[in-house]
């Protein structure tokens, strides 16, 4: 593996839309070519080199390319946008759309991420050591095709609208979440290890949600059908099993209606 190190040299005045900070865009290029890749600051086309010092060399292919952004990216959007392989590591915070439309590879943000992290993600892994804001692993606004695959793990808490229109993959939030979890989802798994305020699984058709803390306000569309003991993210827990959303349509398999499952830690 070959590592390219980007060191921030200037804080963008407006937010920097760096859709080119991906192993796919870097692979096979010289540091000078990488510094010449285009990004946008607002509507103005800029070069990566205006904001980062580029050192090291990428591999021949995206899979052989690791990118280390050695510093804060609080004002940088779209890190790892549409990437298919390789890795991106950020030693600091990142702004919106980290790993948006990502298909493969790994992203590790050692600080916090803003909203839309892993939006419409299809594969790969995102790990965030801090917290995430809203729309974690959700669909693009208006779209009914949300996250399809891959894994997102947030070590901290997350905001609202997690896994909206989710179709597959896994989202793990190790602390609390606010409202709207797996709204309209038709697949996938969301694990919230802390507490959730409410609106969990609204209009959910299929898929699984695990809440290992408590839900302050349950939706009326979920019905408790029993208790189960399951292994969730490496620990065995006793869970109340709910199905829903009973107000939504549900597909049939072998004559039986398929519901979404909501598991909440039993009291």
């Amino acid at each position, binding site marked *: 593996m070959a590592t390219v190190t980007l060191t921030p040299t200037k804080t963008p005045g407006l937010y920097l839309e760096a859709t080119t900070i991906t192993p796919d865009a870097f692979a096979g290029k010289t540091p000078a070519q990488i510094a010449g890749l285009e990004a946008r600051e607002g509507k103005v086309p800029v070069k990566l080199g205006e904001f980062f010092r580029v050192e090291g060399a990428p591999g021949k292919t995206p899979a052989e390319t690791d990118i280390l952004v050695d510093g804060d990216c609080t004002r940088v959007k779209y890190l790892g946008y549409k990437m298919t392989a390789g890795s991106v590591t950020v030693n600091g915070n990142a702004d919106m759309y980290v790993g948006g439309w990502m298909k493969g590879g790994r992203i590790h943000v050692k600080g916090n991420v803003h909203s839309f992290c892993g939006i419409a993600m299809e594969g790969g892994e995102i790990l965030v050591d801090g917290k995430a804001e809203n729309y974690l692993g959700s669909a693009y*606004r208006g779209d009914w095709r949300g996250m399809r695959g891959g894994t997102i793990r947030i070590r901290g808490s997350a905001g609202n609208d997690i896994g909206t229109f989710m179709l597959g993959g896994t989202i793990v939030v190790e602390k609390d979440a606010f409202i709207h979890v797996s709204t309209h989802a038709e697949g996938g798994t969301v694990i919230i290890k802390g507490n959730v305020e409410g609106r969990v699984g609204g209009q959910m058709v299929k898929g699984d949600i695990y809440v290992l803390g408590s839900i302050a306000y349950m939706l009326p569309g979920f019905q408790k059908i029993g208790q189960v003991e399951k292994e969730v993210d490496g620990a065995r827990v006793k869970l109340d099993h709910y199905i829903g959303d009973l107000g939504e349509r549900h597909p049939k398999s072998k004559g039986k209606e398929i519901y979404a499952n909501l598991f909440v830690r039993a009291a």
Partner: protein
Amino acid sequence: MAEILVKNGYVIDPANGIDGDVADVAIRDDRIVESVSSGAKVIDARGKVVMPGALDVHAHVAGPKVNVGRLFRPEDKLFKSPEARPNYRVEMGFSIPSVFKTGYDYARMGYAFVLEAAMPPIHSPHVHEEIHDTPIIDEGALPVFGNNWFVMEYLKNKEIENSAAYVAWLIRATKGFGIKVVNPGGTEAWGWGLNCLKLDDPVPYFDITPAEIITGLMETNEYLGLPHSMHIHQNSLGEPGNYEVTLDSLKLARGVKPRNSFGRTQVMHSTHLQFHSYGGDSWANFESKAKEVMDYVNKQKNITIDLGCVTLDETTTMTADGPFEHHLNALNHLKWANTDVELETAAGVVPYVYDKDIKVCGIQWAIGLELGLLAKDPTRTFITTDHPNAGPFTRYPRVIKWLMSQKAREATLGTFKHRDKVIDATNLHGIDRELTLYEIAQMTRAGPAKALGLSGMYGSLGPGMDANVAVFDLDYRKMPDDPEQIERAFQRALWFVKSGEIVVKDGEITSHGNKRTVWVNPKVKENAQVARDIHEKFAKDYTVNLDNYPVRDYLAPNPLVIDVDVEA
């Protein structure tokens, strides 16, 4: 005085019987003329095809339902919008493009006139505002009448004269172009949770049938002598087995004579016929009845049709056929928007993905093309996609490619997951007809111009016509072996001169042109009863005051008004 000479192109101008003659087209100001001075700007069209500007008889390009589509489908813009460029207004979206992209894309394809296919009368100010903001192309809009309370009450009592007086008033008030009918009776019936899927299904409360509405509005249209005929989206759209209802509706035109001074010879324009040519009684045994429908259309000279070709894209359906959109939403579970428009109509919007690997979509694709290939008279058969319902209008070049090349059709068919099942359920695989450039020009120029009653201005290169001239990168004598080149040529005109101004060069927009709003002004004698009825209904049932209803002149600042003097 601006002069342009389009020199030495292969001219294809079916209105004047010209098929590929090498000739010059002379333009002075906004008109085509016999000749120009030696100082004229010369466009070298040697080895290229020269056609009149095209006309679109049916597209949903402006108004509230188009805007609902734009608002509730932000994902239609995602990854599909070109970046902003100098001298261009913002181009956005794919199936529901921004007004600017709409104007630009039509101009790039050499279109001069587009008819917005369904204007809800009370929202006509909005329709005109969008039309005004759509650059370059001339546009008109058809107000919808098929579920209008006034019309249903007059026609129930067979009061054609009153119906005509009301229709004339409404066309004037909305700056409309003619009479559109959408799911006659069915949209109103839906207010009661019902529909009219057959021609004798009565409309609740009004106690009138779709057949009576269709016949009555055809008679109303000919009483007024409007440029265009009654323009109908028939009942039972999109239902397996609906071809029988379609044939029954088409038969209502039998014996009805066109009466107008615009050279129009049809009394019924049956739109997006693809959606109405279905056999079978479920999606499982769904099949094409294009042949049965076209056999009838071919014989019946007073009917025109447009295709409504499915283009196998992700698109946005929108129609005044409220119950249909509800039905569609139950099939695909995507988003659904719906509205009831007071005494006039309703509308619904639902996104739809025509997936080539779904059998039904493949059959729908084949049916649209079959209609075009089975047509005996291309001047009565027009290319549309019922934009954006069966696909965006920007796919017309692709439809032309399929119609002109069996190789292209087979190549597309070959990509289908259910190719053999699609072949079994359709006629397309056995049709080797390939339309010529002349026939394509009949379907997109001469034909629609005549059917719209606009053949005195558009669709021809004769002297005195509006100077709308398109040059395409095709060699008439040596058409390309690769059908993709046909699509590319029609997607981006080399030159397009609209109303005497060069608006496109090498597929790029060079000017925002001289956009006009075309509307019809039917003058009928005073009708005291209808005037009283209008006042009464506005006082009693409408949410707006009558004085606030008509479209103000400032909303159509560049009008092209067609006066129609109705003889009593």
